[in-house]
């Protein structure tokens, strides 16, 4: 999942749709995020490349909407409802995920096992 500056980022992603749950006055998704371009990437325990400033899933509450949709801890979120999540600040990411008017978020997430699965089945990386 490392990137070369200036080149487009290539990743194998999984599409996950999470329905927000109404909890009192709030709509919650049931997971926590970490990372962002204003954060220290070296402290991210889930990233392979310690200069990766993307948004990662750091915690999933058991039985919550995210858990049921298949989100796993350590996933890197690439897009939220079409909005890019690879070069955003932490607060912007939070805002994109918690828009009050939307009750469904469609995420594109990537993880290491996805790439390995594709490699396994196809024998090489998908061509750009």
């Amino acid at each position: 999942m490392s990137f070369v500056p200036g080149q487009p980022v290539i990743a194998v992603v999984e599409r996950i749709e999470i329905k927000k749950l109404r909890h009192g006055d709030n709509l919650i998704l049931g997971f926590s995020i970490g990372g962002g371009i204003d954060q220290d990437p070296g402290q991210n325990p889930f990233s392979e490349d310690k200069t990766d400033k993307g948004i990662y899933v750091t915690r999933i509450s058991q039985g919550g909407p995210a858990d049921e949709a298949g989100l796993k801890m350590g996933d890197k979120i690439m897009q939220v409802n079409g909005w890019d999540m690879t070069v955003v600040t932490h607060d912007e990411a939070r805002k994109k995920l918690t828009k009050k008017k939307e009750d469904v978020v469609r995420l594109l997430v990537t993880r290491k096992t996805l790439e390995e699965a594709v490699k396994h089945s196809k024998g090489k990386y998908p061509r750009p």
Partner: protein
Amino acid sequence: MDTESTYSGYSYYSGRSRGSHRHGERSRDRHKSRSKDSRSEKSVTINTPPAEPLLGDSSVRGEQVQDDNWGETTTAVTGTSEHSLSQEDIVRITKDLEDSVGLDCRRYFTRTLAVILGLLVFLTPLAFLVLPHLLWPEKLQSCGTACEGLFISVAFKLLILLLAVWALFFRPARAGLPRVFVFRALLAVLVLLFVVSYWLFYGVRILDSQDENYQGIVQYAVSLVDALLFIHYLAIVLLELRQLQPCFSVCVARSTDGETRHYNLGQLSIQRAALAIIEHYYCDFPVHNPALLSASKSRAAKHLAGLKVYNVDGEFPAGPAEGPGNNAAAAGLAHSQSRAMIAAAARRRDTSHNELYYEEAEHERRVRKRKARLVVAVEEAFTHIKRMQEEEQKKSPGDVMDPREAAQAIFPSMARALQKYLRTTKQQHCHSMESIQQHLAFCITNNMTPKAFLESYLTPGPTLQYSRNHWLARQWTLISEASVTNSLKDGTIFLLKCVDFSLVVTSKKIPYIQMSEEYIDPKSHKFVLRLQSETSV
């Protein structure tokens, strides 16, 4: 309850007070009865300590049972001690004799050799110049301008050489070392050989053939003087400069109480290193006080006295050995005895540590109390004296005192407190009454405060601060396994034995230091904030 309390000035250190008259003091302090103290101090008298051998062992006092009021109830000896000669006086006179006459043949021998060599060296160029004029004046070419210019050069170089030799070699000798100073001997031999070879050449080529070229002769003399200056440069480098760069770190420990210091020395021979260390010892180490060691000795004696070995198996204790077989048996017996003693001592429940702890706490408390009393007494004493202003001089000429009299006037009021403090800290043999009064006069003259006056009694100072008989400067022995003219090496160990203690010296080489460089660009100091937040969505 008030017994007659006399303050006899003699008895502090008998014999010391021989010269000065103390009658006035005696009459002045006759009324010093201090009865307010609740302890059983009945008189103010300071009694005569037994004649202490100056060469060390002042623990002859037997201070195992330290009772500060010991001897305080006795009165002092009066008139007889004024004219008697105590043992200290005899030793002191012998020492003065030694210092003044100084029958040291070896030193004079080296001195005369040095003077002869110096004369030879200085007169040689002059002889070279003068001899042709004396021996064959008519054949000699006249001296032109260049030649006469060379005369000036010879004169000034000789003058410089004279001053340089005087500065380097004609200094008062600091010490008498056991072996000859190798470098200096080598240099003397070198100079001698050099001068002799020049004379040989001169004798053969110039005197025999009666050379007429005077300018050549003068140039020859100039070359001799130049070479002598270069030898002097060699002497400076070998004798003075070589040992300046520190090369060894020596650790000096006193064997009796463990005082340790570290010094940096250059490349020296063992005897010169020992000399440097002794000179540092006199400045840095606190004075050796044998009275402080008596406590540990008594504890050690108690350890040994507690156990006694009996042989119950019927074997006779080892008599005079009759042959090797008996020897081995005796040795084995002694060995097993000592092992049994060690085992028994280890098993014995020893409470001596408890005693030590409480004794030390008590001693500490006592010292502090005495010190408080002393400080107050001295401060009060100093308030009785003030420096006289110029205007007052005309008014009352009768009460004017010089510093010594002023010291004598205020000394009695602090004498007792000071004496008790010195007894408690076991320093009383280091300070005589005369020296205390001298110090007091010195402090008064220089406008020092009571605290400044007391400082030399509260902490033990370096040995040179005390009187001459504590110096023992002539009784050092260098004990070394390697030859003392060898140079210092890593791991050299030698001993410097004085009369009742010795200094153990170990040397370590200062390591070779390899340094590397790292350049930091001043613009490279940049910082970012470290944030790591986690948000639940």
